[in-house]
């Protein structure tokens, strides 16, 4: 062991102390800077939702106003677009989450032919540029003479949402202790009961998180929707159309609301996960 007590120099110069301080806190500074960088657009959005507007395009600050918040749906076409997007995202989530969960379960629990291929396809779905996916789907739907609209939107959104759900649930299942399923089987439970009573409750937080993500991805989607929506106007498409002629603060109000709801949901899911985490059996050292 080296010396236990290090004698402090009698006097340390101010610059040295400053450098020392910076050196010790450099990570904190970098973290704070990245946080500011990430939050700046959101802050901008919130600020603009509270702007007092004069013209059609008002990107300058004219004073504080809650007028837009008081009448969030005062813009023509905004409410129907938002409703449509919400219903679309809800439908897509309800379809994609169970399918994605089942696929994740199959991929983790069973060995089957084409497993690697399936993994690859899922990855491709996520990594292929959306513009290409969108135009390819447009091409496909045109060839199939499918009527463009809600139906094609649902098909397209479910397709990319499944991939995200699978990847999220899979990572949770990988960390799932298989002996819990064995224990349930040992106690007389068959496949379905094991899943329903043991596996599902334990992976539920990740399914919920995946569901929220799926909902947001659908609500948020612009590129793919642009290709396959036909005459249907989703909220992102509405904003795009609107931005070319005017930019009412109501759009920022909706944006801010979505952000706040999402933040609340994420916090809730995090807290749920943490309270369950506390109930987890403390991992004991393996010995074999």
């Amino acid at each position, binding site marked *: 062991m080296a010396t236990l007590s290090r004698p402090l120099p009698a006097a340390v110069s101010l610059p040295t102390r400053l450098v020392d301080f910076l050196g010790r806190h450099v990570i904190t500074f970098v973290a704070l800077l990245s946080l500011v960088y990430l939050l700046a657009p959101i802050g901008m959005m919130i600020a603009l939702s509270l702007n007092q507007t004069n013209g059609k395009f008002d990107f300058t600050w004219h004073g504080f106003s809650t007028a837009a918040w008081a009448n969030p749906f005062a813009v023509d076409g905004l409410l129907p677009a938002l409703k449509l997007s919400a219903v679309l995202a809800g439908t897509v989530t309800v379809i994609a989450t169970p399918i994605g969960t089942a696929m994740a379960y199959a991929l983790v629990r069973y060995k089957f032919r084409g497993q690697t291929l399936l993994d690859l396809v899922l990855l491709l779905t996520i990594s292929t540029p959306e513009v290409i996916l969108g135009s390819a789907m447009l091409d496909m739907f045109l060839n199939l003479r499918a009527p463009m609209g809600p139906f094609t939107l649902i098909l397209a959104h479910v397709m990319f949402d499944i991939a995200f759900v699978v990847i999220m649930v899979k990572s949770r299942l990988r960390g799932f*202790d298989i*002996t*819990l399923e*064995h*224990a*349930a*089987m*040992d*106690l*007389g*439970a*068959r496949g379905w*009961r094991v899943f329903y*009573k*043991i596996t599902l*409750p*334990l992976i539920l937080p990740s399914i919920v998180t995946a569901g929220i993500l799926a909902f947001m991805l659908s609500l948020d989607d612009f590129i793919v929707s642009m290709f396959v929506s036909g005459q249907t106007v989703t909220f992102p498409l509405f904003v795009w159309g609107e931005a070319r002629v005017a930019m009412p603060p109501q759009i920022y109000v909706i944006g801010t609301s979505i952000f706040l709801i999402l933040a609340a949901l994420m916090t809730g899911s995090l807290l749920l996960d943490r309270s*369950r985490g*506390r*109930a*987890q*059996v*403390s*991992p*004991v*050292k*393996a*010995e*074999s």
Partner: protein
Amino acid sequence: MRVIPRQASKAAQHHNGFTKMNRLEDDIVIRLEGVSKRYGDKEVLHAVDLDVRRGEFLTLLGPSGCGKTTTLKMIAGFETPTTGRIVLDGVDVSETPPYKRHLNTVFQQYALFPHMSVYDNVAFGPRTTGVSRPQVHERVVATLAMVNMSDFAPKKPGQLSGGQQQRVALARALVNNPSALLLDEPLSALDVKLRRQMQFELKRIQTEVQTTFIFVTHDQDEALTMSTRIAVMNEGRIDMLGAPEEIYKRPNTPFVAGFIGSANLIPARVSGQGAGEVRLELEGGGGGAAASPAGLPLGARVLLMLRPEQISLTAEAGSACSGGSFSARLASVDFQGSIFRYALRRDDGREVVVTLLPQYQLTGVAPGDQLTVRWDSAHSWVVSTD
């Protein structure tokens, strides 16, 4: 599915057992017939035969990789034998899935359901097998009381200590009143003191419920303390099956002799035969009589097993009247609390260890002194090397 009354009738049957011709057959809960297991090219279990008697505490003991856990998993139904049959209560269950076998397992890491209370964990089995609601409650309460965990019923497993989780795991398995309880190194995650305590606790519970326990461990102390019988496994085979004392005193292979307790194994040659014993000439000098299994031919190469605590040490030369002796040089003496450990070196370089209680310690000897090691033939054993 059988329920509680089975044991009562079983006990009655024991009393008038002689009237039944097939009593012996009936007393076998589980029978392995030529069970082997192969993973790819590797055979981890070689045609094992084993009868598990009803109500016994049978331990599968061996180092890691000896096949003990694989054997347990096949009995439980998580693995299927490559060849051979597993018979449970007279029925071939080799291909039966775990949920249809009337057996329960206590897992190494307990595998308690983290999202359920202690009560719900224990109630899982009876509820799943369709036991009526009041009966479930009655059985869960009784079983939790037996493992002294009644006060913890509403807690989640995550709020319990390792020892408490262990008790819950035991209750969750026992509440189903299985034909046999399978325990896969259940104490290995506990610290030494708690493990010791749980050994006695397990033994008490086993005596109380009279359920057949099949216990897997690599800890020989654990095996000796708790078992009715021990099956010592080595490289996918059962080397020896017998009562703890038998295994300790009369091991049949060098592996068993070395794995259970500590043993001095001294190479020797049979130079004379007697009733239940043989005369030996030790390699490197010395010799005498030692208890042995029957049928060792003259001239056979064997190992003389001497337990460190069962041999004596003197500074004088000469042999004990009913045993043998050899000489060795003292290398070191260590005080280990309840015993003194003497390490000696024979002329051929082999080490011999003798442990003596403090009241018998040798005075006036120093490392380098020539000493005589004596054994009594009743406290020695000859291990055949083939």
